[in-house]
């Protein structure tokens, strides 16, 4: 039981401390234990590369970031909407069951060539589609489960009001599902980023983080590769912070009886 004030501080300090500890261990491994730089470059070298290639990294960051963001938004919206349909009609739920299970396991290596063929290797759409599919799955799966979490009594209440499907959805089902949706989006945010990035290995316009990670790694320019990886992590961080803010907003609006 911590006071809200200390909690707010800890929320920021704790992850930073963990990050610093990891960084310290890393630096220790590289400079004291002496792991070869082509296996694991040190934070300092990576920082140096980041500095040297700042513009290049930034450019790549935006390209991948845009794809990831578009994929995340589109995939999440489709995920929530389809989950809503599933909750509304069990037939839809049943019919989507296999399809979603299938989508969930088709890896990017398999999807990328297919979608590149479909959308054209000269456009970013294939990658956005990949990011969207990757984001869609956790949002859909969590939301479907969340939409079932209304309590029997609340369902009875809405039934007694003869509330329409949409009304029940809006007033009861969606608020009950909100924490689940958020959990889904939290998972989706990192998946969208990594998918948008990895999709770049397998075709499409060059320019994103993934392209340059692979190119750099292929010639053992690992410090440079890691500079792009760090950019990918920062991209993930941005996505994470956005979902945390989203969660805050939702939690503020819809406090649950959850334990502390």
């Amino acid at each position, binding site marked *: 039981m911590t006071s809200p004030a200390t909690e707010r501080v800890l929320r920021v300090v704790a992850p930073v401390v963990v990050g610093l500890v990891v960084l310290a261990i890393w630096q220790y491994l590289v400079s004291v234990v002496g792991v070869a730089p082509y296996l694991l470059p040190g934070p300092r070298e990576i920082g140096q590369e980041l500095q040297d290639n700042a513009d290049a990294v930034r450019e790549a960051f935006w390209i991948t970031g845009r794809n990831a963001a578009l994929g995340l938004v589109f995939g999440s919206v489709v995920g929530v909407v389809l989950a809503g349909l599933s909750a509304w009609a069990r037939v839809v739920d049943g019919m989507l069951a296999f399809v979603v299970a299938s989508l969930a396991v088709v890896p990017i290596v398999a999807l990328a060539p297919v979608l590149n063929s479909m959308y054209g*290797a000269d456009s970013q759409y294939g990658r956005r589609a990949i990011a969207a599919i990757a984001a869609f799955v956790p949002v859909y799966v969590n939301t479907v489960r969340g939409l079932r979490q209304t309590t029997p009594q609340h369902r009875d209440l809405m039934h007694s009001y003869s509330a329409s499907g949409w009304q029940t959805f809006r007033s009861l089902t969606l608020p009950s599902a909100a924490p689940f949706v958020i959990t889904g989006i939290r998972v989706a945010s990192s998946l969208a980023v990594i998918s948008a990035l990895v999709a770049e290995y397998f075709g499409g316009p060059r320019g994103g983080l993934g392209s340059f990670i692979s190119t750099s790694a292929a*010639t053992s320019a690992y410090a440079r590769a890691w500079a792009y990886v760090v950019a990918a992590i920062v991209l993930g961080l941005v996505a994470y912070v956005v979902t945390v803010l989203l969660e805050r907003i939702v939690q503020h609006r819809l406090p649950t009886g959850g334990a502390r």
Partner: protein
Amino acid sequence: ACGGDGDDDKAGGSGGGDCNTSNDVKLQLQWLPQAQFAGYFAAVDQGFFEDEGLNVEIIPSGGDIVPQDALAAGDADYAIAWVPKVLGSIEQGVDLTNIAQIFQRSGTLQVSMADSGIDSVADFEGKKIGSWGFGNEWEIFAAMAAEGLDAESVEIVTQDFNMNAFLQGDIDAAQAMTYNEYAQLLETPNPDTGELYQPDDFNVISYQDTKGAMLQDAIWADTACLKDPAFVDRTVKFLKAVVKGWAYARDNVQKAADITVAAGSSWGPSHELWMANETNKLIWPADNGIGVIDQAAWDQTVEGAMAAVNEQGQHLITKKPPATAYDNTYIEKAIDELGDEVDTKGADYKPMDVELTEGGN
């Protein structure tokens, strides 16, 4: 995602003090099993390694495995890799030596449609140029640099594992290996005719004919280990068997293809045969003997590598590689020891004609 154990300060993984000098040898390929590596598979299959007392395990790569890194990390004793990529790695602090330059010529093409008007590297300007990435793009940048084009004057599009992007018009000129992707094109039905695509449907630019040409499949070893006489001895034995393997593949193309399929290649028989044949063309005739590094070709590769700048302004290498980066001693010794046992030059090598079938099956 990090953390290290042992394996301290050795610049060369298993190198340094304790190189593997036993007769159990690991060879790291630079891709999945296919006839591009037919000579090594043949050497195993025909017992050439065994004859030298060696027990050789061939390890495929692809994906995220970089052969020269696997070698440097001590996961293998020898590795097949393209010279420009290894030059990049050497500049990053890996000490590796090219001990046999198996491919004497570059097998990389840039293919465009016959009506595209792209006949030379100079025509790339403003076009969508395909490349696999993973370091395969440096040859393009080098050739463009020689024509005075910088990387930003084209749009580089990453190709995936097949030629669909090119066939559907997403790419104006696609990267293709003579032995593989080019064959894939000729195995595909042309929707306009219903027949397979024909060579005259395409313009083919061979990097071998450009200033960008770079040396490709070479055998690499840890530089430090080459100071160990026992390692050197074993290396020479290894190279002898390799040479015999490639000579066999030259003289028995069909059998070499079959051996490769048996070794785990998943290509269809006609494609495999095509690949074996085209690979031979990159090796034979070998004027100085198979594997001997031609100074001029090496210098051109180094120059190209230094000239190439990618679209983010990054260089492959910025300075000349150290003298240890290649060494003909071992392959020459191997050729020497083989004497007349095998034809190591293939002066009167004649390629065969391979007919491709739909899908390569």
